[in-house]
């Protein structure tokens, strides 16, 4: 352990020597893809036949690898749809990563030269990959499959469309609604029907009436769900956090500042962010003693699937569901969900196309929704359906399969959800989506914790986000 001073030059020399012998990056990745080329994919009976005994409309066979999706680990909606595909295309041998989408996992899979053929990823993240040319445009595939892009809700379609081309097929469609805890409203002397959700003063007043403090916070009045739903509050003011094409940060605009200030005021009225968040983290969110059943919240905007959780775990807790509206009273809700895409490097584009179009086709969704309905019926539970991004599938599911006549309040809730679907908006395909979200989240958190004032936080965030977008858009 002597002569540490020599360490640095020696390291440098070792590295230079290594550099001279080491393969360059290019040859490395070229070599890396070699063994894969010689692997079974080619030795399988290639796409020669008519597609076997399958009923699928396309000519597809061979192997497929799907990243970001689970069959073995998936639920009945996932399993049924894959089963439908396997039935239609018996010549396609598909395997799944069985894990959820992760940027890191997808990246390493792509870098390996043995890229996945199809990928299931959140629509919020898709801009990053489109900008880097990782995904194929799907115009031809959709033509081939006879899939009309207009069957998808516009909000979802916009999220996956760049320069007029769709790069992914939207899968689920999660929108937000106000969930109102009737018991809390009664306790506060409020009528769930009478609060005007387009009037922010009225929201603030309800918040103050609903909050309950019994030595410590025991009931949150109204949770604005910041920073997650900031863009929805900004929409309500007629503003946006980012331009429609995802290329311009609008974080430093008056509407954003006003929305953050308002959210902060709601949280302050509940005792401040520390107490607020700590209390929220103690909730039995997915359990029978959830925050509604335990009367720990007055109202909050929430993804619609949470209605299922409530219906299943605390069927006796009464709720009212209202659309999230802007200041004019028009429904405006944030939506998100996953989508299916084909990687640019796939060596089996036909099977990939057959797979992703089948997964989001109307009949496939209907089969899956039916399977879940049967399961629910067997379990004696209400079936609130599946919210897909395919509007035609939704029509069948909610008209023919979902029958909530025995559950009037749920039926009403589902109706509210369905009404908001056509006008829902989503996060646009920004080339630096993840960095934008980081900038937004940190800015809101800095404001809520009092580390920075709104103007400072938002102008910092705006500069960071814009730099990141510009750098990524090269």
């Amino acid at each position: 352990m002597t002569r540490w001073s020599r360490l640095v030059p020696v390291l440098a020399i070792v590295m230079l020597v290594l550099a001279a012998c080491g393969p360059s990056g290019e040859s490395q990745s070229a070599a890396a893809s070699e063994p894969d080329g010689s692997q079974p994919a080619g030795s399988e009976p290639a796409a020669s036949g008519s597609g076997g005994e399958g009923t699928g409309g396309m000519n597809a066979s061979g192997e497929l690898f799907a990243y970001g999706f689970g069959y073995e680990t998936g639920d009945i909606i996932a399993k049924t749809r894959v089963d439908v595909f396997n039935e239609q295309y018996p010549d396609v041998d598909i395997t799944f990563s069985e894990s959820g989408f992760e940027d890191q996992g997808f990246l390493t899979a792509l870098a390996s030269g043995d890229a996945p053929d199809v990928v299931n990823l959140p629509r919020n993240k898709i801009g990053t990959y489109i900008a880097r040319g990782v995904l194929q445009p799907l115009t031809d595939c959709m033509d081939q499959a006879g899939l009309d892009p207009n069957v998808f809700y516009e909000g979802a379609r916009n999220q996956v469309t760049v320069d007029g081309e769709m790069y992914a097929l939207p899968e689920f469609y999660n929108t937000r609604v106000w969930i109102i805890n009737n018991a809390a409203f009664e306790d506060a002397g409020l009528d769930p029907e009478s609060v005007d959700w387009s009037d922010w003063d009225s929201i603030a007043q309800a918040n103050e009436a609903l909050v309950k403090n019994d030595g410590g916070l025991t009931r949150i009045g109204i949770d604005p769900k910041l920073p997650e739903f900031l863009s929805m509050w900004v929409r309500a003011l007629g503003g946006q956090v980012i331009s429609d094409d995802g290329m311009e940060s609008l974080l430093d605009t008056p509407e954003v500042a006003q929305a953050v200030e308002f959210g902060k005021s709601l949280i302050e009225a509940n005792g401040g962010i520390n107490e607020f968040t700590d209390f929220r983290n103690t909730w039995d969110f997915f359990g029978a003693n959830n925050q509604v059943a335990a009367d720990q919240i007055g109202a909050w905007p929430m993804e619609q699937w949470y209605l299922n959780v409530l219906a299943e775990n605390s069927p006796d807790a009464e709720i009212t569901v209202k659309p999230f509206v802007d200041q004019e009273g028009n429904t405006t809700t944030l939506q998100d969900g996953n989508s299916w895409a084909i990687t640019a490097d796939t060596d089996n584009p036909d099977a990939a196309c057959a797979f992703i179009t089948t997964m989001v086709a109307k009949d496939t969704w209907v089969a899956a929704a039916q399977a879940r309905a049967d399961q629910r019926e067997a379990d004696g539970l209400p079936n609130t359906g599946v919210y897909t991004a395919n509007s035609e599938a939704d029509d069948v599911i909610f008209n023919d399969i979902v029958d909530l006549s025995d559950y009037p309040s749920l039926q009403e809730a589902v109706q509210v959800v369905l009404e908001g679907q056509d006008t829902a908006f989503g996060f646009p395909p920004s080339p630096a989506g993840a960095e934008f979200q980081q900038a937004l989240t940190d800015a809101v958190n800095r404001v809520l914790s009092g580390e920075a004032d709104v103007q400072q936080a938002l102008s910092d965030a705006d500069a960071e986000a814009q730099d990141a977008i510009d750098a990524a858009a090269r």
Partner: protein
Amino acid sequence: MATDEARSADARAIDRPGADVKEPIDWGRVAYNVGFGVVLLFFTILFLYPLVWLFFASVKPGSEVFSGNLLPSVWRWDNYPRLMDQQPVLQWAWNSTLVTVLASVTVTITSALVAFAFAYFRFPFRGVVFGIVLASMMLPGAVTMIPNYLIWDFLGFNNTLVPLWAGNLFASPFYIFMLRQFFLGLPRELFDAARVDGANYLRMWWSVAVPLTRAALIVVFIFELKVAWTDLVRPLIFLRDIATFTLPRGLKAIIDNPSIGGEKHFELLAVGGILITVPMIIVFFLGQRYFIEGIATTGSTGR
């Protein structure tokens, strides 16, 4: 605080069983022992309670996992078969076992070889070369991740268990450093005596150095057992098929279950956590005898 006092107290108890009874009560010592017991109990609870909590969470109905009560209202032992029905848990457990054993055996042997070279041989630039060992230990793992991935992929071991342990064939800087410390603690004369007896260096390493550092080697072995058993990053990168998953990778798959509608089963997650942790607890209990014995042996013969 004083270890000698403890030992002498033990020794006395062994030498003269029952002798303490007749002595007048030393209240100072009683208070010391009571205080000692309280401290011991306090730390034991501190370390064990969260794991106890995890166990009870694994036998609760799903709705009670986050409730304030430690005990479940209904004991749901069927959470265990439920998880095993849903996932190939036994296959994962086998994969984990295989990887862990191979990783631990290889890294212990090779690290002991390398560490011995640094401790015993005199060769040019030894200090500098050892500096490289230290330096390589300091490199943030994230930097070498992608290139390492490409190398294993190039070698054709993607989606197999090989990359999870084969890197250990090349020793580990951490253990080299650790074992070198132990080897340095051995008197050089022991080896010189073996050399006089005509043993070559490999033989000397195997028959003199290794037995004398058995305790340290077992420490390395157990450390690596734990590292390999709980490793998540490498399985995440290299494994894609569910049949090749290790237990932590499988648990991650359960966490990432892409189901929609809030169908997360935290009680099954707790089951997974228990299934990962319990084998390590058993191994540690079993290995402990050798572990302690080994340390004790070194303590007496090494000096």
